[in-house]
């Protein structure tokens, strides 16, 4: 399966701390994307990292990609209560198709 698998499944931190979530996948990818989902709501695109990129930043978000280990991490710095959500990685397989394969997600709780 090309689907990503996140760990941890759940993470609880204090406001102001950093949160790190990891994603592993099994096959060669074209790109990897991170999404956020607030409870019962839609998926919000956070960041896309291509297979030839190693690190990408967007505001308080930092994503790394290690294709040799088939893994990615999402770091949220200086977390806020509003960051409480589920975070998913989604991979695009290297076939030319653009279908996203989602992982199981990490449930992040930021305690004010």
């Amino acid at each position: 399966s090309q689907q990503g698998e996140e760990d941890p499944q759940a993470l609880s931190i204090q406001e102001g701390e950093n949160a790190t979530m990891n994603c592993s996948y099994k096959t060669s990818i074209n790109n990897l994307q991170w999404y956020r989902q607030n409870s019962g709501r839609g998926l919000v695109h956070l960041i896309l990292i291509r297979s030839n990129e190693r690190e990408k930043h967007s505001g308080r978000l930092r994503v790394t990609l290690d294709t040799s280990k088939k893994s990615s991490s999402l770091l949220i710095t200086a977390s806020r209560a509003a960051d409480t959500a589920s975070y998913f990685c989604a991979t695009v397989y290297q076939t030319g198709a653009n279908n996203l394969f989602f992982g199981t997600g990490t449930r992040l709780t930021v305690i004010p």
Partner: protein
Amino acid sequence: EPEVTQTPSHQVTQMGQEVILRCVPISNHLYFYWYRQILGQKVEFLVSFYNNEISEKSEIFDDQFSVERPDGSNFTLKIRSTKLEDSAMYFCASSEEWGQGAHEQYFGPGTRLTVT
């Protein structure tokens, strides 16, 4: 900021009934997708659509499912005879481009389908 919209937000139907879920993708996007998320499970790809035809579909997308772009703005998912296991959140997404270029998919808020 442009966004993908979906209607209805919640649909309750009886087993065996037909349902149509509607989506309005972002206006300049050319590629459209349906995904579903059964409660507590992963988001799963159903189908992608470009130039008025299906580009890719998953094993889930069997003969009970169909998609259509009836006009220049709407994109619909039809389930002909719903089953209990079709109960899920259905997400529509769209993207500007396709293929080896990496392009973000933008998701709608979802339609929660409950089959009783």
